[in-house]
């Protein structure tokens, strides 16, 4: 399986996107911007956190969906539509059905517990505390929590089939054929309407009912990855642009933060949406270029991390919540709390992976290696 | 020698038409031609053999299998194409080939490719774009390429242009090489049947008029031109199927020709001018007009 060996950078990028999610979620507790909305929001805060995490937020999941689209196309090529569905149901559908209720139950349990016992509660915890004192507390609507991306992936696979059944000809060839400059300009335009319809920074689409904006924002990235599969040279065409894209993104991010301060959080304005769209596309491309240049290799550590990333991401949030609820009543600075929560969460997640998952039935369920690369390991 | 099919006492009634008391069988390795006008019952007969219609009474045996009880076994070795049978419009011919191949283990891909070329068909084309002739050829190709033991073909050459007709007959002739394979085909083009068939069966108004081996069939019939005033009485001359007279010329169509017959006619005062063989079309029309058995 020589062809899969070449895609270490895709594996590694995916692992990076997943693991960055842990850091991102840990940092949310110390973000002034999200203080009113996040359950583990801490007294200790820093604007420096906002400066970094919203930057990361703009391209972390887009990058993940590019990788997902890439591997979907590869799997489709190799095993056909039925093979793709079967494999994805086993690797994505089943874990979603099994872990989503468990993870959400664990989070709501620890949150209710924290609402009752934490001495310095966040605004969200306070609200929950008030609710729980009511006679008939309203149940939270069912949702997918931070596993929403698995739910959407399932939709994307179905839509892949829909598109292949309905779309005549090869529009993919047209899109691949565009000059890279045009691609980098037109792609953000495509995303802007979706981003303009939600608040900025965009929330996680956790509802069981799918959201138009999530399809409109993440869908094109999935398609981008899908079209990249078998045409990886397209990434190299962005190489010359990469430094400029990085610079432009940083500059635009400054504008974004400036606009955000005056922003009413119902729906993003068109300029904000455009800026978000540009940054997410351009930074995703920078990541792809960088990944292909720097991360296209594998060693035991990288492979281990990439194997573990799926499990780590699934279970990290309840563990992080438990740790951060404990930290809420400590009198440490935000830096210490953030570092401890990140390190401790990783430690627990990786330990549980090593002991409970890697060589057990759970590991087989998640694919000891992530799906497609799994076949490379087997070869 | 085993039989390709055997019908006995088969009756099938429709609202305006009935197939009555059909007794017919065909040995393996033969080609039988069904001749009849439109609505004579050819298609119904083929449908009964193909398992698409159930006979009201009588027994049907195809390739040694009782129909309809063992129709799966029979249909597995059966090629069947009727004129009104269609393929799936939205699919390509390639799709049909793959579909048929997945059902019949006997599918011969090399032969299929050969037939595609000979029939001038494009596998990647959708059936919706096929002309009538291409559709017929596609259907025949799908049947030929799996080399069935018995081919039931309803009007396989009707509506084809002369070149296509020739190609189809050539492909049909391939079947003759194998003595275990049989063909039953109907046509109102008697030329095709006259050329290819070993046995000829006349169907008219739901009954069999005749079913015999072709050579003796053609041998027995003669068109006799005689001179003189003698006109035979049909009752006394059962061998004569039709008589026409114009002045002193008498044209006789004879269904059981023999030298003895000519002598007997001469003793009646007829001066024989010629006694020529007849073609199948002529024989068929005369038979139908005479309203009796050939």
């Amino acid at each position, binding site marked *: 399986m020589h062809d899969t060996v070449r895609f270490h950078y895709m594996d590694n990028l995916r692992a990076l996107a997943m693991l960055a999610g842990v850091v991102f979620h840990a940092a949310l507790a110390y973000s002034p911007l999200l203080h009113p909305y996040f359950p583990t929001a801490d007294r200790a805060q820093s604007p420096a956190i906002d400066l970094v995490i919203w930057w990361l937020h703009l391209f972390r999941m887009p990058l993940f969906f590019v990788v997902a689209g890439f591997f979907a196309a590869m799997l489709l090529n190799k095993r056909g539509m039925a093979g793709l569905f079967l494999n994805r149901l086993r690797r994505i559908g089943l874990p979603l059905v099994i872990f989503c209720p468990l993870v959400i139950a664990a989070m709501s349990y620890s949150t209710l517990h924290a609402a009752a016992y934490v001495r310095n509660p966040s605004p969200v915890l306070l609200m929950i505390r008030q609710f729980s004192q009511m006679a008939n507390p309203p149940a939270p609507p069912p949702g997918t929590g931070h596993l929403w991306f698995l739910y959407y992936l399932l939709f994307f696979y179905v839509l892949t089939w829909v598109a292949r059944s309905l779309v005549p000809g090869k529009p993919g060839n047209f899109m691949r054929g565009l000059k890279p400059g045009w691609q980098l300009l037109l792609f953000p335009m495509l995303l802007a309407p979706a981003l303009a319809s939600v608040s900025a920074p965009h929330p996680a689409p956790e509802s069981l009912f799918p959201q138009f904006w999530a399809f409109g924002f993440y869908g094109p990235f999935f398609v981008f990855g899908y079209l990249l599969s078998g045409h990886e040279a397209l990434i190299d065409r962005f190489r010359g642009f990469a430094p400029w894209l990085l610079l432009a993104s940083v500059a635009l991010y400054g504008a974004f933060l400036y606009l955000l301060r005056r922003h009413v959080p119902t729906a993003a304005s068109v300029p904000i949406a455009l800026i978000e769209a540009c940054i997410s596309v351009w930074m995703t491309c920078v990541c792809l270029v960088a990944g292909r240049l720097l991360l296209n290799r594998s060693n035991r550590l990288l492979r281990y991390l990439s194997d573990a990333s799926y499990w780590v991401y699934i279970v990290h949030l309840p563990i992080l919540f438990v740790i951060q609820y404990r930290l809420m009543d400590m009198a440490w600075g935000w830096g210490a709390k953030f570092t401890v929560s990140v390190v401790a969460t990783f430690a627990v997640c990786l330990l549980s992976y090593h002991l409970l998952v890697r060589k057990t039935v759970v590991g087989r369920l998640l694919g000891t290696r992530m799906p497609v690369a799994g076949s490379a390991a087997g070869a | 020698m085993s039989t390709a099919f055997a019908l006995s006492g088969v009756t099938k009634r429709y609202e305006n038409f009935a197939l009555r008391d059909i007794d017919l069988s065909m040995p393996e390795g033969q080609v039988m031609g069904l001749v009849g006008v439109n609505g004579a019952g050819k298609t119904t007969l083929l449908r009964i053999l193909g398992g698409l219609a159930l006979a009201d009474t009588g027994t049907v045996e195809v390739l040694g299998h009782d129909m309809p009880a063992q129709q799966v076994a029979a249909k597995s070795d059966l090629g069947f194409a009727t004129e009104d049978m269609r393929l799936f419009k939205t699919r390509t011919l390639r799709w049909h080939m793959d579909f048929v191949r997945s059902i019949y283990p006997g599918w011969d891909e090399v032969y299929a490719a050969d037939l595609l070329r000979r029939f001038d068909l494009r596998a990647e084309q959708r059936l919706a774009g096929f002309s009538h002739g291409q559709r017929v050829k596609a259907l025949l190709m799908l049947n030929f390429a799996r080399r069935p033991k018995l081919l039931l073909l309803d009007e396989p050459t009707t509506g084809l242009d002369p070149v296509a007709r020739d190609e189809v007959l050539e492909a049909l002739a391939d079947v003759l090489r194998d*003595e275990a394979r049989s063909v039953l085909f109907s046509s109102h083009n008697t030329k095709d049947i006259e050329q*290819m068939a070993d046995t000829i069966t006349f169907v008219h108004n739901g009954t069999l008029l005749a079913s015999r081996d072709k050579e003796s069939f053609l041998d027995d019939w003669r068109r006799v031109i005689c001179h003189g005033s003698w006109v035979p009485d049909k009752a006394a001359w059962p061998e004569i199927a039709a008589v026409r007279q114009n002045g002193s010329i008498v044209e006789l169509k004879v269904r059981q020709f023999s030298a003895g017959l000519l002598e007997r006619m001469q003793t009646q005062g007829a001066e024989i001018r010629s006694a020529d063989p007849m073609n199948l079309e002529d024989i068929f029309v005369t038979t139908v007009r005479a309203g009796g058995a050939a």
Partner: protein
Amino acid sequence: MLDERSRLCVHAVFTVAGCGGRRHGSCLRRNADGCLFLHSGRGLYSTKGAVHTVYMKYAQIDPELFLSTSDSTPMYQQIVNQITTKVMAGDWPAGQPLPSIRELASASRVSVITVKRAYAELGQAGVIVTRHGMGSFVADSPNLSDSLLQAEFTQHFDAMLACARRLGLSVDDIRQLLDDEQAHGAAEPTRGSTP
């Protein structure tokens, strides 16, 4: 047994069979040996060596005859005539194995029963002999062509006599015509106009 020339000959036979049109092609693809057996009378020449001896002596027969559906001559008669012509012309030498009935039927696109009948007629006429289980061969009589020509001559001669009778020509008239024919010599052999 096989000298170099025969080997070449055998090779040529294979090549001819291989490129002799798609009909032979499809047959060869299925089983090249089977194809050889078909042409050389199946059952008899069960060993490859024997097959080779056949090909050393006889050329491959193209089983396709040129038959016409628009010809008023019955199909079997057309087959009889063409095979007779081939034998008379020496295309098919004495002892040459004939194509099997099915092979000839398939190649010429006529029914098996027609070919059967034609072979039977040819057998009766002594043009071919059919050995049970071995197939048919051109009759092994040394002056077959002569006897066939003789038969044809007799046929035409009888027809001429019948015609003459109807014209009311006497034997002397005919003799006179023959003498005239002789007198004009071979220079104008096809004068042929009857008075």
